[in-house]
């Protein structure tokens, strides 16, 4: 992260002569600050805050889609969802497992790829392009592609397994193979993202500590764990923070690959909410699920923010 410059100071503004600071609390500077954020604020309020209030209201009502009767039922939907075995034993573990596995594996893969690209060899540009390909195609396309690759009868993986002597495995008909394919696709899409950002981080590191480590005959692994990782930690912290929040809400890849199936066993929080609303047509329960998910991720993001702030100043 770039070191922030000091703010535009009051004393330099010709409008604010010294001693004129005794203005009301909404001074010229504050008005300017508010004007700068007004456009963004209006869009944010209209299309995020208003819908969330709307959804919070709906989550306390018995609200069937397109049914005008909206009885106030209090916490009924919340109690239902928090007692729903699907939500507790499938949706929550899946969501956090996907978040954890996707972020960890893409981080490890991204670090490896970044080191691979960092060597400045001939033929680096084509390799960089190939590594970036998964980020260039839409996640929906990537998911459809992976579904084809992992098709249990016609897919390449099935053909390969057949060739080395394993019988056909109905990948998408069992929970853990389906979940594995979802994680694999997510990692496939996001490893290049980590690689690109970590590569930029690696290139901006100073050379001297590494030369010093070589003179002290530190092995490559020791150099990596004691120099590279600590020096990259702020970049890693930001990547993990952003990616974890995004992985929690992943929808399209799973929706295309498994649709939450087989038998709702690969549902994550977003899919659960969508199915409750548009398949079971219960807007109240869907909103309650959406609220619960939002609260969970707010707590998780708060904890991660605190953890990341120890390593670096996130807001700066």
């Amino acid at each position, binding site marked *: 992260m770039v*070191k*922030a*410059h000091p*703010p*535009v100071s009051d004393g*330099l*503004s*010709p*409008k604010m002569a010294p001693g004129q600071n005794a203005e009301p609390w909404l001074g010229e*500077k504050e008005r300017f600050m508010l*004007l*700068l954020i007004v*456009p*963004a*604020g209006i*869009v944010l309020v*209209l*299309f*995020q805050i208003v*819908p*969330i209030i*709307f*959804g919070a209201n*709906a989550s306390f009502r018995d609200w069937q889609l397109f049914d005008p009767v909206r009885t106030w039922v209090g916490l009924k939907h919340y109690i239902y969802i928090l007692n729903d075995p699907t939500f507790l034993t499938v949706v929550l573990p899946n969501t956090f497992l996907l978040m954890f596995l996707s972020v960890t594996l893409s981080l490890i893969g991204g670090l490896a790829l970044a080191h*691979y690209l960092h060597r400045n*060899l001939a033929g680096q540009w084509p*390799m960089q392009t190939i590594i970036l390909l998964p980020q260039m*195609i*839409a*996640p*929906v*396309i990537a998911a459809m*592609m992976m579904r*084809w690759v992992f098709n249990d*009868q*016609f*897919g*390449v993986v099935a*053909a390969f397994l057949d060739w080395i002597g394993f019988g056909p495995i109905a990948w998408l008909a069992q929970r853990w193979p389906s979940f594995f394919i979802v994680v694999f696709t997510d990692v*496939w899409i996001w490893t290049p993202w980590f690689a690109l950002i970590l590569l930029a981080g690696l290139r901006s590191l100073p050379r001297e500590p590494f030369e010093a480590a*070589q*003179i*002290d*005959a530190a092995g*490559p692994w020791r150099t990596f764990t004691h120099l590279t990782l600590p020096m990259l930690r702020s970049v890693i912290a930001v990547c993990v923070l952003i990616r974890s929040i995004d992985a929690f*809400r992943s*929808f399209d890849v799973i929706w295309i690959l498994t649709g939450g199936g087989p038998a709702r066993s690969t549902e994550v929080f*977003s899919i659960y*909410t*969508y199915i409750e609303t*548009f398949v079971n047509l219960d807007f109240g329960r869907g*909103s309650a699920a*959406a*609220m619960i*998910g*939002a609260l969970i*991720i*707010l707590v998780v*993001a708060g904890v991660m*923010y605190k953890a990341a702030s120890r390593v670096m100043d996130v807001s700066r």
Partner: protein
Amino acid sequence: MTALPVEQSGHPYRWTDALAPGGRQAFLWLATIAIVFLFLGPIVILVVTSLRPGWAVFYIYRGTDFTLQNYRDVLATEAVIHAFINSFLVATLATIVSIGVTVSSGYMLSRFRGPIPRAWFGTIYVFRTVPYISWVLPLYLVCYYLGIYDTYAGILLPHIAVHICFFSWIMKGFFDGIDPSMEYAALIDGCTRWGAFLRVALPSAIPAIAALGILSWLYTWNEFLFALILTG
């Protein structure tokens, strides 16, 4: 002396030195092949499948029949062409508006300190965190009541809203990297705050903003959930 082996071998010690001669080269080749296989392989399969006649896609690993008929069929379908035009329009408009709206908010976050920027950053972080489904789901009904469900406005405005938080954050980073002393100079010479922002700071940030524009266009082009919920 511990540094001696390094001097003698003529190049810094690498763990691959433990391998047989040429082992490092072989290892790098293997890594290269694995990367090409993993990242290019599925896309090659996608392209090859798109060139197969309809009955041959089920035998993806054999056969030599290729055809361009699929592409002709797709390009002859009105709905597909229409979908491409829609995606293009929405992505372009959403990019222009969201960049225009967030650039000032990023500038504010970068240049000022105090309770207002802190509160605004907190808001942005919180709403960046809220899962899409939690606000797009009720937005479906809000759009319905506003009468913009299944219209361009109905699909465009949420695509702008979704970028506000993240882009403000990124823009702040851009402006952090620009030295504010030019703006001080402009202020001393009698420029207004708006002038310092629009005429001094903004032009220096244009290259970074252009890059973010490309990213924004791609994000919108790739988005799936909004269109799934907000259009019929």
